């Protein structure tokens, strides 16, 4: 049975970092990210290694900002889109941090923050956990779609896997923006099997999670300054709003979607928006946590949405499952 977990000890995100590729840097929030690489190779020879390097670099930067080193971190929750989550393992092998490789497709960022929060609550008070998630457009194209140089047209509902990464450092505390409640997501099968319409595949899970969360916490959308979904894109966001309306929930005034924010909607080639585990991770660090730091947001719901599938499952006609874990983040107290 699904439940909202009230954290005995709130978990603060006391440092974070973000990095992106070219298209994201050229997007409307390009200036917010900590660094970017036009070549998207991050100094490496292959796209897969580039993502590992990106994963490594964002964590190093988050640690650097907090003047900590890898040895200060007790747990690392890291995930990406590559097969066997290999970008994360290759990127962090030298750091010698106890490692959890996680996979929740585009929901990985929230999943990692949720698991890190629970782990910190269950272990020594002074422990530090890190959460890093990345995605790389070229690595994802190769794995899930077609060769990068292949010439094809994509449908308007297709989404663009972001080349992006976000790293977060967490510990028990309330001075920085902190996670107070979490809710693991339940997988939802909306019966959508079109990999070019991920937004539609994920929207039912986002709707289910939002409805459950509001019901279980006895809160209303008005109690939050923003309800942030991961990467439903423009199509998925519309569907979410329709699905919520059938349950008499209206979040239209509070809803923001990372997939819609990361690219300029006037740019036709991003189609329905961004996706990938790095999309919501980079924006949480570069945009939402900054807004909370500046006092603009007091309390937000953050739910990255994951589309659970593989190229084989899609080719075998299985529908794409959605999952949307939720974390509630409150502004820091200083």
């Amino acid at each position, binding site marked *: 049975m699904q439940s909202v977990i009230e954290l005995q000890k709130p978990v603060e995100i006391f440092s974070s970092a973000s990095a992106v590729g070219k298209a994201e840097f050229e997007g409307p929030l390009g200036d917010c990210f900590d660094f970017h690489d036009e070549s998207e190779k991050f100094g490496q*020879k*292959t*796209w*897969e290694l580039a993502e590992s390097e990106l994963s490594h670099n964002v964590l190093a930067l988050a640690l650097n900002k907090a003047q900590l080193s890898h040895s200060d971190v007790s747990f690392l929750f890291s995930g990406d889109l590559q097969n066997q989550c290999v970008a994360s393992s290759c990127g962090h092998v030298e750091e010698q941090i106890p490692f959890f490789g996680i996979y929740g497709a585009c929901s990985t960022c929230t999943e990692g923050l949720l698991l890190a929060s629970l782990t910190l609550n269950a272990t020594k008070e002074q422990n530090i956990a890190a959460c890093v998630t990345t995605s790389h457009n070229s690595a994802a194209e*190769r794995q899930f779609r*077609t*060769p*990068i*140089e*292949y*010439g*094809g*047209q994509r*449908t*308007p*509902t297709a989404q663009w896997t972001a080349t992006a990464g976000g790293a977060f450092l967490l510990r028990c505390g309330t001075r920085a923006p902190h996670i107070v409640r979490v809710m693991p997501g339940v997988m939802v*099968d*909306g*019966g*959508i099997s079109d990999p070019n*319409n991920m937004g*539609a595949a994920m929207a*039912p899970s986002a709707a289910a999670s939002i409805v459950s969360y509001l019901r279980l916490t006895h809160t209303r959308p008005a109690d939050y300054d923003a309800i942030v979904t991961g990467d439903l894109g423009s*199509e998925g966001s*519309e*569907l979410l709003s*329709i*699905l919520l309306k*059938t349950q008499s929930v209206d979040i239209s005034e509070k809803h923001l979607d990372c997939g819609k924010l990361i690219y300029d909607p006037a740019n036709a*080639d991003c189609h329905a928006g961004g996706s990938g585990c790095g999309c919501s991770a980079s924006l949480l660090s570069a945009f939402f946590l900054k807004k909370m730091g500046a006092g603009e947001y007091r309390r937000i719901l953050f739910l990255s949405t994951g589309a659970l599938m593989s190229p084989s499952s899609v080719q075998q006609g299985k529908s794409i499952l959605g999952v949307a874990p939720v974390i509630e983040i409150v502004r820091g107290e200083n």
Partner: protein
Amino acid sequence: METKEYQALVKRRAARSPVVKNCAAAFWCGGLICALGQLLIYLYTLAGMQRRDAGTLTTITLVFIAALLTGIGVFDRIARYAGAGTLLPVTGFANSVVSPAIDNKSEGLILGVGAKIFTVAGPVLLYATLAGVVWGVVYFIITLFV
């Protein structure tokens, strides 16, 4: 909302590709490639080649151009506009062979390039060969009676 109801909603809502614009692009781009092919055939026959050899050399020339454009990273940008205009001519076949070759170099020349070179174009080659063999057998049987 029931799954069936949701599927219908998604299907109804999903924005359609701009068909008219895409068809116009496919028409003039595809037409232009074919006209270029015709010009090459003319030039090669002018240079003294047999009509059929000129046709084969034209195919090879177009494949070369498409391979080059794929290599320098321009083909996919043209194709994004031209759609079937570059897909259907032999340029599309060339791109579907060349792009996985470049893409899979990172896994090595044998198991990367070698094993993956037909991942996209393989179906075309398979079914073309299959259809050809079937036609050959049928034609052989016909020749027995006619």
